[in-house]
């Protein structure tokens, strides 16, 4: 029962990722990201319950606080200082959506078929772990897709957040027994890196007057 709940919630994560990337209004995009982060926290909590592993409640709590509250709050705070509409991406809305879905499906399919090769235990090879690692791969791929095709520096930060969500999903689906010592470090890094990026992005905006990263290409690569 819980296993099914986890599977369906994780599928919702793919939807929220696509929405967060494709939605051209940045406040709504941040909102979608926030929803996704809450979903991750929910999945962690469900795992904690079904595997009877109290350490995972910490995971759930830290994910909720860091990704569900702090990071979206930071994003909104800095968004006020810049503008709210995204710089046009490289692709139009429809081709972009189609390409994004295609990339996500490819990653999903690969991870779904190869999940069993990555783990030693039979118990970890079955559902919902398999579905979860496939979802993680899809979210990861969507994050990459955003990094490659978006030109708005703010949107790229959201892409990085998605990428990190994908990695955290894989963490839980591959290694649900991970100790909490590493957790603190990983979460701190994520929050600080987003903060730093936003700080510098705001500086870029103030000096260049736009968030269009294609201007950044004027520095020789």
């Amino acid at each position, binding site marked *: 029962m819980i296993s099914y709940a986890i599977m369906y919630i994780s599928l919702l994560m793919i939807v929220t990722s696509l929405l967060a990337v494709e939605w051209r209004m940045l406040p709504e995009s941040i909102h979608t990201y926030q929803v996704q982060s809450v979903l991750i926290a929910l999945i962690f909590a469900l795992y904690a319950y079904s595997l009877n592993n109290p350490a995972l409640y910490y995971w759930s709590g830290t994910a909720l606080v860091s990704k569900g509250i702090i990071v979206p709050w930071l994003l909104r705070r800095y968004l006020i200082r810049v503008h709210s509409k995204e710089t046009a991406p490289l692709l139009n809305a429809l081709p972009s959506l189609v390409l994004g879905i295609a990339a996500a499906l490819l990653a999903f399919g690969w991870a779904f078929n*190869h999940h069993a*090769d*990555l*783990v*030693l*235990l039979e118990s*970890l090879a079955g559902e919902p772990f398999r579905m979860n690692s496939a979802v993680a791969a899809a979210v*990861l791929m969507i994050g990459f897709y955003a*990094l490659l095709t978006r030109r708005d*520096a703010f949107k*790229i*930060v959201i892409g*990085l957040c998605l*990428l*990190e969500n994908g*990695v955290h999903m*894989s*963490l839980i689906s*591959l*290694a649900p*027994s*991970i*100790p909490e*010592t*590493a957790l603190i*470090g*990983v979460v*701190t*890094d994520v929050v*600080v*890196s987003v903060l*730093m*990026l936003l*700080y*510098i*992005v705001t*500086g*870029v905006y103030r*000096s*260049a007057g736009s968030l269009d990263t294609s201007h*950044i290409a004027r*520095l*020789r*690569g």
Partner: protein
Amino acid sequence: MAERGLQLIESTLLIWLFVVPAIAALVEYALGRKFPGSAGRVAILGATVTFGCAVAMAYRVYEGARLIAFGHQLLADPLAGFVALIISFVGWVATIFAYPYLRHQVAEGKVPVERLPMYFSWSMFFISTMTAATINNNLIMMYVLVEATTLASALLVSYYWKPESLEAGYKYLLLCSVGITIGLLGCVVLYAAAVPLVGGHNAMLITEIAKVANQLPPMAVLMAGILIIIGFGCKAGLVPFHAWLPDTYAESPTPVAALLSGVAGKVAIYAVARIVTIFFPGHSVLGTFAIVLGAISMLLGIIVAYQQTDLKRMLAYSSISQMGYIVLALGIGSYLGFYGAIYHLLNHGISKAMMFFCCGALIYSFGTTDMRELGMKKHSRVMAVCFFIGVLGIGGMPPLNGFWSKFAIYVAAGQAQMWWTLGIALFTSLLTLAVLIRAGALVFMQRSHAGHADSHAQAFQSMAAATAVAGASGMSARHSGPVQAAAPSLQTETQAEGRRCPPAMMAVIILMAALIIITGLNFGFLNHLIDFSVRSLLGQVAGG
């Protein structure tokens, strides 16, 4: 391996190694609000103590001890001791160098004086994260610490807060964060694969994973290895992932560029060496992957370096090329390969940092790094000599240090019968020599005939001044006042002469040039330390 697993000693030295610079950073930050003018003194003290800790640690490790702390979370074997020594040394001299350098920039109005403490605070954090990464034995923490080096240095890269430096900082932070997140995925896959064999908490420890390296599922190892090489290779600036590197090195303050090029990239390579070499015996694909990446970086890096007109950019591309050497040598995976990699890690760290310091001195004197413009100026001979020692060292001329490490790499490639690798390595070495000598000639030898006697006297003077303070680093603190006061009077001299470098900066450059020669001699102590480091890597490879 006779010396492996002999004595495991709990030692607080490991904790001091990264706590001391962190404390110095906090003190700098706290004091900086009230006394921005005296920023940097605590940092120099902290960096000196850190270097002292690293020397003590390297010595104990050299004597055969293995130091541990927090259970096995922190571990110093010879390799860790050796890399920590390089990092803390370059960190130490970079801090000393930054003291007069940044004060000059404040005097010139490039940086407001309130931002001065921020520099020293962040750079001490930067050194702290790097030293912590070297003694870390925890797989996931390796990601955390390498990412922390990026975070600590991001604001240093954007220090001048100009459009160019902001964009460089943005690129640096974004691309390195993305790269290292890929590295984290690799670490996670590896960890997940190891959990059933050694248990949840032990699977974090790299030394524990090494024990079960050959029982892990091959698919997981392959995927993890490639993700880790790509992820950490991004931070090291290997070729398809190098887009951030030239801008970052060129736009950041020169002492930061020296730190980034000299040691920060090495930390990433060290992480790869620590984690991925465990799996070389069963998975030759990983070695081949590293060799291919290394070879591409070597060749492309030096070819693009040739086209640069800016000295800092040229050095940045040359760094990519030299990183390629280290990764390639690691990929070969034999004793000599590892020997060459670790030795070259030291050599490139010293030489490239020294050349960036020369860049800093040139900026100090003439305010530019454009090679053609610099060619019009009259240069200090001492610095020209030091620069050329660096050129010949990196270019691999005997008897300097770069020759021996590269020679080890050639022989390793030959022994492994990788002839194309050997060919690329030799060809790159020739190109490197040509590119760097051309750069040196463009900068230092255009005006050498003009004002011969005059420059000779000046060179002698600065040499005498520099040798007088060599070793007495604390001097720089007291000298800053007079230097600032003297600057306007020096400006009255001809434009081509430029401003005379303060003795602390020259002392750092001369000290490092001397080290290039000394490490080239490869004394017993150094050779043994490298030998032990290689053995600790090989011991890891052998599975114990």
